[in-house]
């Protein structure tokens, strides 16, 4: 087997050194009746060529050749080849969590740079070394708010990503948290009056997302004022990080939970991505997840270490702030390289292109008879339109023209049938948008 670096003779030599007659002897502590005597029934062994062929065959059964207008928490953005070159360097790819600081300064400094970039983007003072993804980061932000307030009630906007809310509910169910939902207005943003009416001094956190699941940009000031007046934590989830190149960060937030997928990570059928928690310095000791900190060595040189580990499970066991052990270090590194490549101007320009293309796409779609804009709040690169027919039926028509149509909102929001969430990014060309508009027009004109 090509991955195993021993010859049969070496194996024998090693067994002899141990004083064992056979390899079986080394497994003598496993009771005989539980020893597997027949070979596992799994495919293989495959040569490298066969492994590649298997996955190429599977890839061919997917969506190659289709143009997609899906976003909803996973976005297709340009990525430089440099990002993949860096994260495939074995020194990053095949290194462990940097507990041995002297020989992992590369990873540690990169995490420190990641934390800095996340602070700059979100307008917060401290950011962790990453969480699993946006959904779990949002949940962990709520748990952090619970620890900070010692309260057990959470208000989450219905305009937060449905799957983020689902994950929060899974965690809440078992930790005695009560999760209640706040409706949205006809503009597609949080209903501030409903929020105010529900807020009491037993609320740990108010969770909103911006741009929210409908693509609408929330106005934070009033929501934050109401939240803070009740002594609760204002938690802002961000699923589309590129928006921060152009949209004001949530300065009013106590905790920001962000999905980092948009920063150089491919959609990859939903993962792996990188979640982020950013917050205020004063809350750092209740933050979950790893943190890299700057320090000096015994000769006074600058260096980095994992720090404040007394919050973490390997030290605190059942008293830890979270059970999370891993971060998504390589994904965070990809985000760091990607954002460094983009830089100040590149990120702004990418964000402007998203905005411009989304504006263009909306104007093209509104030229079609029966297509109506819904939710009139400002948007970034995603917006909601109402179609005169079922979105699912329309999408089936679009598929015939090799277009993966917008997300049907009715699945997650039964009251929003016929509404479609359209996403375009800088990767969507004008020709593709025009083709989409043309195909949509034809689909709507077709007799049912």
């Amino acid at each position: 087997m090509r991955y195993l670096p021993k010859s049969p003779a070496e194996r024998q030599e090693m067994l002899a050194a141990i004083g064992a007659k056979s390899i079986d002897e080394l497994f003598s502590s496993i009771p005989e009746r539980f020893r597997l005597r027949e070979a596992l029934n799994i495919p293989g062994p495959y040569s490298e060529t066969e492994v590649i062929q298997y996955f190429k065959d599977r890839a061919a059964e997917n969506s190659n050749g289709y143009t997609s207008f899906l976003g909803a928490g996973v976005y297709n953005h340009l990525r430089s080849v440099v990002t993949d070159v860096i994260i495939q360097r074995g020194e990053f790819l095949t290194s462990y969590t940097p507990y041995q600081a002297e020989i992992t300064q590369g990873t540690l400094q990169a995490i420190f740079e990641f934390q800095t970039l996340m602070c700059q983007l979100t307008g917060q003072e401290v950011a962790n070394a990453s969480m699993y993804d946006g959904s779990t980061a949002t949940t962990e932000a709520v748990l952090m708010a619970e620890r900070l307030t010692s309260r057990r009630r959470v208000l989450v906007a219905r305009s937060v990503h449905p799957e983020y809310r689902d994950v929060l509910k899974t965690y809440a169910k078992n930790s005695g948290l009560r999760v209640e939902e706040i409706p949205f207005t006809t503009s597609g943003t949080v209903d501030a009056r409903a929020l105010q009416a529900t807020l009491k001094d037993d609320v740990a956190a108010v969770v909103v997302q911006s741009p929210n699941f409908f693509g609408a940009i929330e106005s934070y000031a009033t929501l934050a004022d109401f939240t803070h007046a009740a002594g609760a934590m204002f938690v802002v989830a961000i699923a589309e990080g590129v928006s921060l190149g152009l949209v004001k960060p949530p300065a009013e937030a106590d905790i920001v939970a962000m999905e980092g997928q948009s920063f150089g990570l491919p959609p990859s059928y939903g993962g792996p991505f990188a979640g982020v928690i950013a917050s205020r310095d004063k809350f750092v000791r209740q933050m979950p997840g790893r943190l890299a900190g700057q320090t000096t060595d015994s000769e006074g040189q600058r260096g980095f270490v994992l720090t404040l580990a007394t919050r973490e499970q390997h030290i605190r066991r059942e008293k830890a702030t979270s059970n999370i052990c891993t971060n998504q270090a390589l994904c965070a590194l990809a985000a760091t390289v990607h954002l460094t490549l983009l830089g100040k101007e590149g990120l702004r320009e990418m964000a402007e292109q998203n905005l411009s293309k989304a504006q263009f796409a909306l104007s093209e779609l509104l030229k079609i008879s029966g297509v109506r804009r819904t939710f009139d709040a400002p948007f970034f690169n995603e917006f909601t339109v109402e179609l005169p027919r079922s979105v699912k039926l329309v999408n089936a028509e679009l598929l015939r023209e090799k277009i993966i149509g917008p997300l049907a909102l009715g699945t997650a929001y039964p009251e929003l049938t016929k509404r479609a969430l359209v996403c375009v990014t800088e990767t969507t060309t004008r020709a593709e948008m025009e083709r989409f508009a043309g195909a949509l027009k034809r689909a709507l004109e077709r007799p049912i």
Partner: protein
Amino acid sequence: MNSKIKKALRHTNQKEGLIFEKSSPGKRAFELPPLDVPAADPARALGANHRRAGIEGFPEVSEIEVLRHFTRLSTWNYAIDLGMYPLGSCTMKYNPRVNEFVARLDGIATEHPYQPQELSQGCLKILRLLEECLLEITAMDAITLQPAAGAHGEMTGLLLIRAYLGKQGNPRKKVLIPDSAHGTNPATAVIAGYEVENIKSESHGQIDVDKLRDLVTGDVAALMITNPSTLGIFEQRIPEIAEILHAKGALLYMDGANMNALTGVTRPGDLGVDVMHLNLHKTFSTPHGGGGPGAGPVAMKKILEPFRPVPILVEKEGGRLALEPVRPDSIGRVKAFAGNFGVLVRALAYILAYGPGVRQATEDAVLNANYIRKHLEGVYELPYSLPSMHEVVFSDAIQKKNGVNTVDIAKRLIDYGFHPYTTAFPLIVAGAMMIEPTESESKEECDLFIDAMKAIAEEAATKPEIVKTAPHTTRVRRLDEVGAARKPILRWKPAAPRSEAAD
């Protein structure tokens, strides 16, 4: 230079500041294609109150600077690609590069989780085949690939137990955890809403079965066991342990962190385990990447199947696969979308490369651990003498007499060209030295490691200072961790304008 250091030589490495310190306005490393639609006015489209001015402090550098910056940083890391990484419990094995290649294919990396399932059959077939392989390896009945990491898998597993017991009327209060367990186990139990009761190991480091019999009451939901234990020892009475739990209606959870000792040789499902997680980034070779991403699938017996987190992969008529978002008894969703798909792809690529021959990997891993044990026994104290599986745990008891502890020895290994073993773990061994070579090390590399460990033992006896102040060859010396925690500096900030006097 110490002539006993055979594997490593000093060599120059480059200095490199923070990327923010290299920034200069107007430089850039990425250009977008020209905008092909009319440019929108952000202030009008977003509203002036939403519009952000530039991001203060964001880097402005060129492409070559980015490449050099991160390449230089990378050279400051130790990695499996450079040599043996004997971190006990972490299974730092070779990460095959073909796995990286296939995870990046067009049609794999490019797929959106909400695209129509008829256009995702390739992705779903990958998930299905991986499920089947892992079920065969574990002898379990059902599986979820959703959890993003080992600890996430533990949580999912305990929530399954909670849901199952709850459905019978009482989710119960306590989870029993041996004192040798990973720290994630107790932290997870609390997240899942359970109290933790720690149980002491008996004198050979195994679960004290008689004591367990007394502890398992109607309040106990489950026992979380690691097998082989963190001492690298197989829990021989595990079937009996399972019976004790089952007799009282409690379940047996197995932390699969150490599956690299069992794959193809014995199967947890046959041993009486009810639910377990697998760390694909350990046993199944997906890269650790400096601390993630991982994946922590949870395999289970039939009784827990109805409670699996959504979405559930099902086979429809005609063999078409689908992810179903709703199940009445499901514990709910544990993560957005369909698991860490890219990691799952890599794990399947690993399994396909071995096929049933994966047993040879297990055998080689156990062979390496025992070879190292044989050569270091006596040089270092072996606190528990039962047979070792894939890892061996020594202690620093002999060296301690000279004031040299496990961390010192670990740090000295760096000078010899190796990554340290695991130090602060398992907690039941004072001064633990937990060594897991994995199957990826040749006899030559094992021999070099043994030589290095012997040479360090000799140094500890004759010139302990050199060990206590190690490492001596790294670009930074031991770092001030206390200072880092006392006054945390967790981000770069632009230097305040310096006054003349300060210069």
